[in-house]
């Protein structure tokens, strides 16, 4: 059985060896396929799982998707240690080596241009959460003082008016945190994007999917020279200090997944110009 070719990334030739036990999405070790001085990092995957039909079905299976995404990322991570890879989208599959070669032939100029652009740079992810559920219990204390002090020995249940007032205050507190988080994120983005070479906004994550606490109000990626990464991380760290009820999460360094966009056929119109 021959198997198909799964392509992880394209990069320039690199000297150091990849980790010895590195395995790819279906367990086979990734190998390098050189074409005109560029390298495609590929591994063999079984046709039974990666042909169009089974692949489509697998992609709807969360466990399979998770395992595949993690294996893909592991290879990209290993490449990031030795070079600056240009990562391809998940599940880019070809019939055989010659299919991969003709793709590289066709996109050679684009690959070189984007590889030059990304050389020595990494991506950092920054997310801002509003910790909305924290507003609830702390409110309580102030509200237990009943408005009226009359009545019998039996403490009555909260009156409708008190209940509504409490609800309103809770809602208000939540909205307040949300607004503060959004404003905070705006300022943070200003700082970070003027430090980074490029930035991209991702859609905020669904908290059911992320299982993270709080509400994600901001989700961005920044392209930063590897050499400046430490400074970038410090900037993020500093911002975290003065933000009660707001959580900042940093991920990375990633390969520049979010900055391969110049590769797209259509030119994205960038409004931000200038120094």
């Amino acid at each position, binding site marked *: 059985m021959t198997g198909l070719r799964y392509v992880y990334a394209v990069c320039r030739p690199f000297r150091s060896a990849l980790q010895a036990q590195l395995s790819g999405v279906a367990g086979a070790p990734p190998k390098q396929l050189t074409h005109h001085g560029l390298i495609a990092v590929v591994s063999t995957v079984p046709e039974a799982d990666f042909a169009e039909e089974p692949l489509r079905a697998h992609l709807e299976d969360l466990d399979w998707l998770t395992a595949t995404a993690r294996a*893909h*990322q592991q290879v990209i991570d290993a490449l990031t240690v030795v070079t600056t890879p240009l990562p391809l*989208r*998940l599940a880019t599959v070809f*019939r055989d080596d010659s299919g991969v070669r003709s793709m590289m032939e066709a996109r050679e100029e684009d690959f070189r241009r984007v590889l030059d652009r990304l050389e020595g740079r990494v991506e950092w*992810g920054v997310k801002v959460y509003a910790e909305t559920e924290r507003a609830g219990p702390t409110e309580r204390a102030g509200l237990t003082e009943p408005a009226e002090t009359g009545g019998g020995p039996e403490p009555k249940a909260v009156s409708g008016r008190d209940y509504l007032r409490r609800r309103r205050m809770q809602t208000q507190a939540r909205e307040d945190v949300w607004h503060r988080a959004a404003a905070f994120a705006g300022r943070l983005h200003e700082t970070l994007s003027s430090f980074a070479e490029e930035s991209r906004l991702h859609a905020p994550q669904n908290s*059911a*999917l992320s299982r993270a606490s709080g509400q994600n109000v901001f989700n961005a990626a920044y392209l930063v020279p590897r050499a400046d990464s430490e400074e970038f991380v410090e900037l*993020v760290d500093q911002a975290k200090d003065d933000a009660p009820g707001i959580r900042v999460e940093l991920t990375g360094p990633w390969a520049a997944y979010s900055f391969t966009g110049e590769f797209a056929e259509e030119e994205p119109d960038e409004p931000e110009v200038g120094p």
Partner: protein
Amino acid sequence: MTVVERREIALVDLLDRLLAGGVVVTGDITLRIADVDLVRIDLNALISSVNEQVPSPWGELT
């Protein structure tokens, strides 16, 4: 570096990049992006529907 969180990468962060980022080249078997986006939406629906079922104590009644 005083990096903040160094725990395992969350699946959503991974998917933000692997399904929405990365170079799109047309392999001879690659699914079109539109298909993958659909998959993503399905996953969202799937997971939120699973979560909705959890807090309901009435699910067992027949």
